[in-house]
């Protein structure tokens, strides 16, 4: 129980500090990353790709990016996939991802605002 109390305290502190500098207000975000996590995504590394996105968000100390998942999404031949959407509704679909590519997408697309053309897939997903 002692551990749990310590944990709650730590999280509360994070919450207070984060709220001060938070740019997300009532669901507003600058980028949303959606990763399909169906069986066909998982078997080719979707979890590792999602973890790489989370790691990169942490490394760049981003506070206005949301990472979410969806169950099923089209062709398995381009998985793992990530859809990066900005707050204006522009959507870019990246495919055949690896953890390294995911980190690069965060660095270039999300931090610097440039689409990583080499990983863009145009295959319709639905």
């Amino acid at each position, binding site marked *: 129980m002692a551990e749990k109390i310590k944990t709650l305290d730590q999280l509360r502190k994070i919450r207070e500090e984060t709220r001060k500098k938070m740019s997300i207000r009532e669901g507003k975000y600058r980028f949303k990353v959606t*990763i399909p996590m169906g069986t066909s995504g998982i078997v080719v590394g979707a979890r590792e790709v999602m973890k790489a996105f989370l790691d990169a968000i942490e490394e760049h100390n981003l506070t206005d990016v949301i*990472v979410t998942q969806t169950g099923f999404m089209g062709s398995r031949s381009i998985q793992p996939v990530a859809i990066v959407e900005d707050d204006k509704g522009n959507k870019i679909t990246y495919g055949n991802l690896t953890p390294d590519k995911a980190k690069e997408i965060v660095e270039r697309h999300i931090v610097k605002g440039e689409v990583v053309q080499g990983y863009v897939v145009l295959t319709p997903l639905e």
Partner: protein
Amino acid sequence: MMEELSLHIMDVLQNSLAAGARKVELEIEEDMDGDRLRIKVRDNGKGMTPEELKRVWDPFYTTKRDIGVGLGIPMFKWVAEHCDGSFRMESHPGEGTMLEAEMRLGHIDRPPMGDLAGTVLAMVVSSPQVRFVLRYKSRKGDFFFDSQEVREILGDVPLSNAEVIKFLKEYLSENLAKVMEAA
């Protein structure tokens, strides 16, 4: 195809989300003395009729166009049974689904648990609207995690915030490492 039990678990949790579950409970028990490993998932999703449940065992059955989807459960079942274990599912429409995989802990072909912390982190952060409850039991102790507690503390701070991710990642891996005895 799936080299870690935590990936099979991820797949099962994903099925629960696809079934519209608002709460998903995962319980893992290492029984070193009895040489058994038990993995149980219970959700409050839309559930399945006996007819639908029967078709889950069929690797060629899927409700979706994603070819891989129908394979998840048959693969997990195969792993459990191959490792001197058993696999069962119960489901009731409107109530939810329960799945239990059980196998011999020391079986030479048993896949390692792998990155369970990564599975839980990915699920919790990317589906904040769903309540995930994890209980891991072993001889070394119990680890209990309820994403609702985290949600309540955070309030309007999103789970996919850099600081929160960092905290959860460390919290989950440290606490799981403390209780996980079998690889």
